[in-house]
C-alpha cells in the first residue's frame, strides 16, 4: 500500500481533492459530514504534498517524474514534481486552515445546506486545480486546469446571495474567459511552431526554431503574459479583482486572494522560464516590461488601497500591489530575485489568508464594513485582531515576519540586476502598506471600545487564525527549508542562463 501511494504521489495530490469534491453533492443534507469530508480532502492533499516534498528534498528522486497512463513524455501527459512544483504544493496547504475557518459558520454567509455544499465542492475543485498547476508539465493540461480553477473561482465569488457579488462574478467570468482564450492562443502558437505540448520538449524545439519565426514567438509570449496577467490581476488588468475578492464570502476571499491568483502566477513562471527561457525573454525585453508593470502595480495598487474605506476592498487592492512584487521579481532574471519572488508568493498566500479571514471574522461579529467603524475592535476580539496585526506586520515587511525575507531578497535581486527603480518601488510599497494597514490597527487598539458586544469567533475559526498567524511568524523566523526550496526552484528555472 505504501509503495503504491509513494509511486503515485504526484497524481494522488491532484486527484484526492477532486475525488472528495465529487463525493459531496449527494450528501448535501448532512452538512456536518460534508464539512468533515471537505477538510479531509484538503488535509489529504497537504499530507501528500508534505510526503512528496520529503522525497524531493532528500534527493531520493528529484525531480519526481510521473507519466499518466504510462505514456512516455512527448506523447503522454507528464507530471513533474520538481522543486517548483513541490514548493507550490506546500503553498496550496494554506487551503487547510481556510477550510477550518469555514467549518460551521458558512451557512450565515452563504445560505442553506445545499449552497454550503456547493461552496465546498467548488473550493475542493479549486484546490485540486491548483495542485495540478503545481505539478503539470503539459501546456494543454495547464489550460484545462486554468479553466477548472477559473470557473470554480467564479462560483466561489457568487456563492453569497448578494447582487453585487453576482455582478462581480459576471465581470470576472467575462474577463477571465478572455484571459483563458489568450492563453489558449499562446499555447496554440507554441504548438504550431514546435509541435510539442510537453513543456520540456517545446522549450528544446523553441530554442532551435525561434530565430526562423521570431514574430510568432513574440506573439505567443505576449498572449501568454497578457492572458495570465488578466487572471493574476497584473496591474493594468486588475479591474475585476477588487470587486470579486471583496464581495465573496470571507473564506472564499482568503483562498482567492491568497491562493488562486498565485496558481496563475506559477503557470506564468512555468511558461516564461520553462518554455520560453530567460534568453528569449531578454531578446524580446519581456523582463523589462514585467519589472515595469510590477513596479507600477506596487505603487498604484497601494495608493488605491489607501483610498478605500471598506476593509475587505482595501485588502483586495493590496493584493494587486503584492502581485506587483511577484511580477517584478519574475522580471529581474536572477536567482536571488526569482527566489525572493517565489518566497514572497508563499508568504503573501499565508498573510493574505490571515488578513481576509480576520477581516471576515470582524465583519461577521460587528456587521461593520468600513475601517472607520471598527474602532475599538481590538479589545473586544483580541485573538482576531492579534492575527490581523501579525498579518499586517508581515505584509509591511518587518523583520521576524515572513514578508521581510521575500522583500529582502527582491531588494537584493534588483541590486544584483543593477536596477534602482524597482528597489525604490519595493521600499515605497512597504511604506504605503504601512500607511493603509497601521491606521486599522491603531483604531482597533487605541480608540475607546464601543458598548456593543463583539465576541471572538468560534473555536475552529480561532484555531485557523492562530495557525495562519503562527505560519507568518515561523516563515519569518525560520524560513530554512522553504527558502531553500524557493532558491533551488529559482536556480533550476534559470539553469541555462
Amino acid at each position, binding site marked *: 500500500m505504501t509503495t503504491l501511494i509513494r509511486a503515485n504521489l504526484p497524481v494522488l495530490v491532484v*486527484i484526492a481533492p477532486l475525488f472528495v469534491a465529487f463525493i459531496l453533492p449527494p450528501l448535501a443534507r448532512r452538512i456536518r459530514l460534508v464539512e468533515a469530508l471537505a477538510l479531509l480532502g484538503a488535509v489529504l492533499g497537504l499530507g501528500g504534498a508534505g510526503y512528496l516534498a520529503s522525497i524531493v528534498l532528500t534527493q531520493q528522486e528529484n525531480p519526481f517524474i510521473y507519466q499518466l497512463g504510462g505514456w512516455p513524455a512527448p506523447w503522454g501527459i507528464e507530471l513533474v514534481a520538481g522543486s517548483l512544483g513541490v514548493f507550490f504544493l506546500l503553498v496550496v496547504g494554506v487551503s487547510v486552515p481556510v477550510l477550518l475557518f469555514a467549518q460551521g459558520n458558512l451557512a450565515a454567509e452563504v445560505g442553506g445546506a445545499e449552497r454550503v455544499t456547493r461552496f465546498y465542492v467548488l473550493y475542493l475543485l479549486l484546490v485540486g486545480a491548483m495542485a495540478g498547476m503545481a505539478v503539470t508539465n503539459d501546456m494543454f493540461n495547464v489550460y484545462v486546469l486554468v479553466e477548472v480553477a477559473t470557473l470554480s473561482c467564479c462560483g466561489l465569488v457568487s456563492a453569497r446571495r448578494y447582487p453585487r457579488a453576482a455582478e462581480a462574478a459576471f465581470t470576472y467570468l467575462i474577463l477571465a474567459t478572455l484571459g483563458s482564450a489568450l492563453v489558449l492562443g499562446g499555447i496554440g502558437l507554441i504548438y504550431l511552431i514546435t509541435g510539442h505540448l510537453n513543456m520540456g520538449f517545446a522549450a528544446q524545439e523553441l530554442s532551435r526554431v525561434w530565430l526562423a519565426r521570431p514574430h510568432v514567438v513574440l506573439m505567443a509570449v505576449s498572449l501568454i503574459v497578457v492572458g495570465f496577467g488578466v487572471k493574476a490581476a497584473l496591474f493594468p488588468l486588475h479591474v475585476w479583482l477588487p470587486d470579486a475578492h471583496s464581495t465573496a464570502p470571507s473564506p472564499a476571499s482568503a483562498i482567492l486572494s491568497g491562493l488562486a491568483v498565485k496558481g496563475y502566477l506559477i503557470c506564468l513562471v512555468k511558461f516564461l522560464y520553462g518554455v520560453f527561457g530567460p534568453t528569449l525573454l531578454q531578446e524580446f525585453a519581456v523582463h523589462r516590461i514585467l519589472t515595469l508593470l510590477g513596479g507600477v502595480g506596487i505603487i498604484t495598487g497601494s495608493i488605491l488601497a489607501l483610498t478605500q474605506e471598506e476593509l475587505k476592498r482595501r485588502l483586495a487592492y493590496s493584493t494587486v500591489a503584492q502581485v506587483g512584487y511577484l511580477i517584478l521579481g519574475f522580471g529581474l532574471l536572477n536567482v536571488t530575485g526569482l527566489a525572493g519572488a517565489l518566497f514572497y508568493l508563499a508568504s503573501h498566500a499565508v498573510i493574505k489568508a490571515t488578513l481576509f479571514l480576520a477581516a471576515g471574522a470582524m465583519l461577521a461579529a460587528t456587521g461593520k464594513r468600513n475601517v472607520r467603524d471598527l474602532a475599538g475592535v481590538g479589545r473586544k476580539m483580541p485573538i482576531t485582531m492579534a492575527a490581523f496585526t501579525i498579518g499586517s506586520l508581515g505584509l509591511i515587511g518587518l523583520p521576524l515576519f515572513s514578508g521581510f525575507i521575500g522583500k529582502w531578497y527582491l531588494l537584493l535581486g534588483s541590486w544584483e540586476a543593477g536596477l534602482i527603480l524597482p528597489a525604490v518601488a519595493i521600499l515605497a510599497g512597504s511604506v504605503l502598506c504601512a500607511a493603509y494597514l497601521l491606521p486599522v490597527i491603531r483604531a482597533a487598539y487605541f480608540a475607546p471600545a464601543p458598548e456593543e458586544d463583539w465576541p471572538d469567533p468560534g473555536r475552529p475559526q480561532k484555531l485557523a487564525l492562530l495557525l495562519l498567524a503562527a505560519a507568518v511568524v515561523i516563515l519569518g523566523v525560520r524560513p530554512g527549508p522553504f527558502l531553500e526550496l524557493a532558491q533551488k526552484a529559482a536556480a533550476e528555472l534559470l539553469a541555462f542562463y
Partner: protein
Amino acid sequence: MRDFILKRAASLILPFIFVYGIYVILHGAVSPGGSFAGGIIVGLSFIAFSTIYGIEQGRAKLPEKVLVWTESYGTLWYGLMGLVGLVRGVPFLANKLAGVDLGTPGTLSSGGLIPLIGLGVGIRVASTIVTLFFTIMEEER
C-alpha cells in the same frame, strides 16, 4: 403542449434516440462521436420528452436527486476507472498496461477501459445538460 400526433411520434422515436446516445457514448473509441456527443444525445432525449409531455412529467422521470447523483458520481466513475491502473501497480489511467484485454481492433472491446470511462462522462454530460434545461425553464416561470 397537447398535440396527439407529436406525443405518439415522440413515444416511438425517443427510446431509440436514447439508445442511440448510449451507442455513441460506448463506441467513442472506434467511431465518430464519443462520450460528450453521446451524452448530449441522451440528454436531448430527456429534454425533448419534457418539452413534449411537460416539465412536470420530465421532472417525474428524472427527479432532482437522481440528477445530482448522476452528475457527481458519473465524474467520480471516471476517476475510479483511472484507479484501476493504480491498483494493478501501473500509472493512473493506464489502459493496456493495466492488463485490460484489448480484443480485436475495430470492435467495442478494443477500447479497453475507454468505453467504461466514456460511460461516466456521458452520464455526467447528459445529466448536466438536463439540469441546465430544467434550471432555465424553471427560471422563466
